[in-house]
């Protein structure tokens, strides 16, 4: 812990942005993330077509629907979210710590290795080598490589964070914890059920893994970036940094036992199931502290959340986050679970979390950072607006549609209707889901084209000017 103080007083000592941030790598991560987003959404659309009985690739074993589904989930978790988070961290961590990452060469090596891991996972899944753990379908031979990669990521980002002196900003707390948690969670989910325990115990660990992947990998990285980007876009510090620390420590103590709520009504002892239910409901209090803090920070400048596109992405994600957590507190109760378990309610909930919250936040960060890195405004701010509305609108329709479908399916099963009856009543909902999914997919294609044309524009005209750090370059 011998390093730069939180604020360096002399200009000679103060590092330059160019010395800290490897901007090219940030862009590369975004390109990789968006590429895997396209792959994931294509797989999702194929699966959606299968559900409405229009499988475009029948009788092709390598592209059977069960495998698409795993490509869809793994590509979004490890291909899109992880890549985008790594790119954002390459911007945020050096600027917050005023130190570059541990090693520039290591940063590029991690980038290349991570793309190989995700590609190998996709190929392994398509070849039928998936591991039998939900969200942990990475073939077993990839697991040690991925874990080693996560260790390198922890070293690369952890070094500058640990070198900061004095009280740390909350983003760095979240990032530091995420680096440790992700490594441990990945090891727990991929190795413990595979090699050490079996039966219900393996199920319980699998439940922890599913939820910890969301709560201890994606959530801290997501909130970490939010605590960084929102204050700098609003040009004011967080309403209460102390309250943000309550949120962080609350997450640390509440989250680890929640996952068993995925296995209610199973042979897992009831006290564990009730413990998971209670800790899930209790986490709502932590969520409320976080929401209050972000609303307090916005207080008096609410109009900016409408006119500033990156901020609009961030606060839309916060709204979805609140909704998903509220939904979570309800759906983990035993009564509610009896109705919605195995239904499309859960699928709607998962899409609202992964796309409505974390993907929206990452789109907001990309919308803000890409013109800053290219030093030119977006090629088409209007297309950025379309990207937002089609993404947010499509997701709202899809999540609402699936949540409603889940209720109908649950009631159909509870009424002891034949299985076919629940399929027939689901077809209209699944048809709407395809339309919403196509709108979301179209939005991403538009964003990628805009990204490409913005790059071409930056080559053509050179740096136009220093793009405003307020993020207004995406406002039409």
């Amino acid at each position, binding site marked *: 812990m011998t390093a730069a103080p*939180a*604020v*360096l007083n002399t200009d000679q000592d*103060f590092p*330059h*942005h160019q010395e*800290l941030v490897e901007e090219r790598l940030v862009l590369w991560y975004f390109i990789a993330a968006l590429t895997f987003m396209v792959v994931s959404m294509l797989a999702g659309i194929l699966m959606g077509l299968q559900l409405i009985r229009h499988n475009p690739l029948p009788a092709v074993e390598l592209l059977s629907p069960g495998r698409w589904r795993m490509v869809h989930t793994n590509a979004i978790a490890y291909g899109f979210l992880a890549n985008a988070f790594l790119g954002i961290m390459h911007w945020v961590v050096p*600027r*917050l710590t*005023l130190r570059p990452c541990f090693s520039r060469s290591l940063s590029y090596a991690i980038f290349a290795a991570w793309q190989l891991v995700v590609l190998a996972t996709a190929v392994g899944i398509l070849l039928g080598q998936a591991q039998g753990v939900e969200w942990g379908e990475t073939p077993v031979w990839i697991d040690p490589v991925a874990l080693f990669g996560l260790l390198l990521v922890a070293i690369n980002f952890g070094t500058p964070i640990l070198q900061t002196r*004095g*009280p*740390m*900003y*909350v983003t760095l707390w979240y990032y530091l914890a995420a680096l440790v948690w992700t490594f*441990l969670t990945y090891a*727990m989910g991929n190795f*413990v059920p595979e090699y050490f*325990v079996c*039966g*219900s*115990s393996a199920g*319980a*660990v699998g*439940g*922890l893994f599913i939820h910890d992947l969301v709560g201890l990998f994606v959530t801290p990285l997501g909130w970490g970036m939010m605590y*960084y980007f929102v*204050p*700098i876009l609003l*040009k*004011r*510090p*967080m309403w*209460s*940094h*102390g*309250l943000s*620390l*309550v949120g962080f*420590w*609350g997450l*640390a*103590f*509440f989250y*680890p*036992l929640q996952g*068993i709520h995925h296995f209610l009504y199973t042979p*897992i*002892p009831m*006290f*564990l199931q009730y*413990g998971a239910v*209670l*800790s899930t409901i*209790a986490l709502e*209090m*932590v969520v409320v*502290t976080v929401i209050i803090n972000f609303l307090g920070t916005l207080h008096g400048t609410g109009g900016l959340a409408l006119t500033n596109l990156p901020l609009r992405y961030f606060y839309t994600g916060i709204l979805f986050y609140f909704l998903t957590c509220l939904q979570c507190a309800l759906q983990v109760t035993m009564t509610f679970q009896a109705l919605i378990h195995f239904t499309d309610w859960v699928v709607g909930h998962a899409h609202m979390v992964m796309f409505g919250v974390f993907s929206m936040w990452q789109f907001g960060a990309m919308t803000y950072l890409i013109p800053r890195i290219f030093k030119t405004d977006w090629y088409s701010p209007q297309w950025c607006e379309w990207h937002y509305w089609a993404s947010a609108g499509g997701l709202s329709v899809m999540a609402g549609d699936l949540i409603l479908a889940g209720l109908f399916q649950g009631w159909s099963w509870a009424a002891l209707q034949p299985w076919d009856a629940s399929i027939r009543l689901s077809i209209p909902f699944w048809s709407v889901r395809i339309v919403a999914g196509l709108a979301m997919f179209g939005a991403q294609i538009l964003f990628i084209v805009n990204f490409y044309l913005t790059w071409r524009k930056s080559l053509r005209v050179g740096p136009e000017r*220093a793009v405003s*750090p307020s993020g207004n370059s995406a406002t039409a």
Partner: protein
Amino acid sequence: MTDEPAAYRTHWLTWLFATLVLVPTILGFANKFLDLVLVVQGDEDGAFAVTPIVNYLLATAGFLCLFVWTATQGAFQNLDEPSHSMMENEHRLDQQT
């Protein structure tokens, strides 16, 4: 850097929410720990539950140690200072470009 009313508000709000979060956490933790002791003492059918609980205890113990260490390092003395220094550093980095 912060005015008195804001600092006072931060102080009592932090303690209020910390209490709201910590009291149920401690109660829940004690309850689960008691269940673990009962399982280990006699319920053979539920013995496999030890795996996830030990998992949780290890994670929580780690964070408890980190929390205590952080408190002893003075991280909770001036809660809003990191927020202000972050804004100042960002401003200076942006001014360079």
